[in-house]
């Protein structure tokens, strides 16, 4: 066990899995970097540095730099996956999946079912998500609802260094396509991470904080935000339970329902526009299966129904921020029934 950042945890998971299984390969843009250039080859390791050092250790046959061709990256990863490799493909920013979505949702996601269970597609698509870095409308989206609604995909949103490592190792060992969504805002987050390999199974929520008055469900970068607000509310005597489902598909419905059965109040914090969001999805699930436990309407803190704005003040207001989370919590608490 030692302190590592979220980025280091991901890098370590990749390295350990590549050492363990020669079929694990990495494919993407600048995952090594410097090919054909006058200086160093392999020194970049991805624009966020997540694959740093892997080219040096594993070489050009296992760490493959590609042209800027997302459709071919994802198509090649799925084709390699159904024929015996375990590719980890990188789509630098999730926004770029627009270019290659067919290869994800019509191809990779459907092979297993459509071919009557005869195909396995063990691949991971790692991608950076989320607003807050002033990246503008095409570099700041989260898009997890888009993947979550596609049967055949598993969708992971790690919210801590510990989870990032264990979930990525699990993703690589899965036989289905996994969308591994890395929160850019968390890349520098530090936490205790075991040095050895370990798996965190999908569909098991993490109860980040126990409480009895109100349940927060949050995803990815919204988890630490929700936790911070929960700690603020504790000072006012409001006891908040914070649940991080860790995977949006499969979704650990039981943990959410158990918590709401205890607290009777739910606020979902989700960095996505409101319609068809995970907030809407979780709210509908609880309304359906946990109606009897509810003492207040379900609160949803999401982004507005707009693209991500560039100006810092607009972006800060766009994201679920502490003020809006706290308002939703107090509204749920004030509801008398």
């Amino acid at each position, binding site marked *: 066990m030692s302190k590592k950042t979220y980025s280091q945890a991901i890098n370590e998971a990749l390295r350990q899995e590549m050492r363990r299984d020669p079929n694990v390969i990495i494919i993407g843009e600048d995952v090594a970097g410097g090919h054909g250039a006058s200086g160093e080859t392999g020194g970049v390791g991805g624009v966020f540095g997540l694959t740093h050092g892997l080219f040096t250790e594993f070489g050009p046959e296992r760490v493959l730099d*590609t042209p*800027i*061709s997302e459709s071919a990256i994802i198509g090649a990863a799925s084709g390699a996956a159904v024929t015996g490799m375990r590719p980890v493909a990188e789509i630098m920013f999730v926004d770029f999946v627009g270019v290659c979505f067919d290869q994800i949702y019509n191809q990779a996601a459907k092979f297993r079912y459509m071919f009557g269970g005869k195909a396995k597609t063990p691949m991971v698509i790692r991608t950076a998500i989320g607003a807050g870095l002033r990246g503008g*409308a095409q570099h700041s989206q989260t898009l997890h609802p888009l993947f979550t609604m596609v049967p055949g995909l598993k969708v992971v949103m790690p919210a801590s260094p510990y989870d990032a490592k264990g979930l990525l190792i699990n993703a690589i060992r899965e036989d289905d396509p996994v969308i591994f969504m890395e929160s850019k805002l968390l890349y520098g987050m530090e936490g205790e991470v075991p040095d050895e390999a370990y798996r965190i199974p999908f569909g098991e929520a993490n109860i980040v904080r126990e409480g009895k008055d109100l349940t927060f469900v949050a995803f990815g970068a919204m988890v630490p935000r929700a936790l911070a607000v929960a700690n603020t509310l504790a000072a006012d005597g409001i006891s908040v339970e914070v649940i991080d489902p860790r995977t949006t598909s499969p979704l650990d419905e039981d943990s959410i329902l158990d918590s709401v059965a205890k607290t009777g109040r739910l606020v979902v914090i989700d960095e996505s526009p409101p319609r068809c969001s995970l907030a809407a999805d979780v709210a509908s699930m609880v309304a359906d299966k946990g109606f009897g436990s509810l003492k207040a309407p379900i609160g949803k803190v999401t982004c507005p129904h707009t693209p991500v704005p560039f*100006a810092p003040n607009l972006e800060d207001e766009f994201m679920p921020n502490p003020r809006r989370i706290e308002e939703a919590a107090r509204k749920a608490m004030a509801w008398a029934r």
Partner: protein
Amino acid sequence: MQLSRDDLKRAYRSMVTIRTFEERVTKEFAQGNIPGFAHVYIGQEAAGVGVCFDLTDEDYIGSTHRGHGHCIAKGCDVQGMMLEIMGKQGGLCGGKGGSMHIADMSKGMLGANAIVGGSPPIAVGAALTQKLKKTGKVAVAFSGDGASNQGTTFEALNMAVVLGVPAIFAFENNGYGEHTAASYAVGAPSIAERAKSFGMPAEVVDGSDFFAVHQAMGRALERGRAGEGPYALEIVCSRFLGHFIGDPQGYRLPEELIQARANDPLPRFRTGVTEAGLLENADLDAIEKQVADEVEEAVQLAMAAPRPDIKTLETDVYVRY
């Protein structure tokens, strides 16, 4: 086509404006006055200016993430650009777009574009409008060498030929897509050869030479305006700085960067026109001084400007929830 003294001054002014603007963007970024990330156009000025020089406000361009130079070359307001890049009220997109999304429909500027390969298909559509409305105008898609490998670009090249639209594909080959060399990522012998194989005329141009770019663009434009179909230019140039501001560039040797600077399009233009007796050094110095003042003023005003009104977060959408 012979360029007049005024034309030459306009060309130099445009290139110097880009250089000065981008140097200032680099500085303001380093000081934390520009949010997000920014990709500057330093070294490629002759490409953008050469391509846009004879375009009117009714001709369109689609740009890239490295779009400031294209905006300036197409006549976007420098003040409005600086406000936009700093995320301030009064920016060309009201502060909602930022560096990678500057657009100005009144100038035929269809937007910088943060999706590599985003512009070529859009330019095909803008060119289709010109064909259907018989305007005699054209649409230009700026793309990098990296973008030339994107499927959207291949589809756009082919469709421009099939539909016979006046689209001009201006590929700026600056040798790199991010940190990967074009020599590695472009499988074909050249981007121009690739464009030709789609069925359109294409040529390789020296992108450090304003005159070479301008003349090649003249040929593309003649074909487009006559309704004869698309054209491609592979404009060979260099990126003097990193991919984004702050890129440490370990993948490039210092000698390479020195060599790139030796072919700087600005001094090259200056030497060319003064040695030919077309302009005096004093003319060019005066332009540099004017531009420096203009950019300084744009920065001062942008620094002092307020952030966008928070209410604009939910404007420009057709529904609220």
